[in-house]
């Protein structure tokens, strides 16, 4: 059995899931902080 497809699949899962988590966390933070900032400036 060629092991490389399994190794590549495992790394793809790990890297894509980590990237998705970081991007989702960043986007959620960026949007929330922008909302808070715009509300503060409006005051």
């Amino acid at each position, binding site marked *: *059995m060629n*092991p*490389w497809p*399994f*190794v590549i*699949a*495992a*790394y793809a*899962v*790990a*890297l894509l*899931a*980590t990237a*998705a*988590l*970081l991007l*989702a*966390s*960043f986007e*959620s*933070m960026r*949007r*929330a*902080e922008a*909302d*808070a900032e715009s*509300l*503060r400036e409006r*005051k």
Partner: protein
Amino acid sequence: MHALANPARFLRIAKPATGWSLAIGLVLALAGIVGGLTLTPPDYLQGETVRILYVHVPAAWLGMAGWAGIAAAAVSQIVWRHPLAVVAGRAIAPCGATFTGICLVTGSIWGRPTWGTWWEWDGRLTSMLILFFLYLGYIALAAAEKERGGEGRIAAIFGLVGAINLPIIHYSVLWWRTLHQGQSISLSGSTIAPSILWPLPLTFFGFTLLFAAAVLMRMRGELARARVEARLRRSAAE
């Protein structure tokens, strides 16, 4: 811990810490992955599939460490009413769930060529799957409590009770000697050859810092949303 009880003080530290964790985490994780994929020899028994260890082990550690963080936040919330504890618990849960999911999937991919099966109801695999479901339960419970305007006490108690699963995961390979191999790395040393082991600390600390960066970003997001809600409530009251 109590020095960080003030959200403004926490944010002063969290803002630079987010960028540094992200940058150093990316460098370490990438160095470990490149080293693990190209510079280490294949294992004499497992062959090339041993390379999956460099992402699987950090994911398993972060899945368990995440729940330990939730339990610590729960104690802070229940005992000291730490104002950031609820925010920390909510921020850690999706990150811990993601890494527990990575651990389960990469473990399954490792199992097929190594053990000849994608899944087995082995003690370690089953207790890790239970941890994943505990995360999903915690996320749902915390979201429901937040929607109702609750203080998050039910989620905190759930976080504490769920921590019972952590020693079960840890000792599962000793209690039920089934398919998953025993502990290879302990405080007293490692049974893994140094030529194979060296990228593991890089991915271990790299992914841990990326996890920390994701938690910090989520905590900052939660705090910003709380500021918006408080401001809107004040405006409505005026």
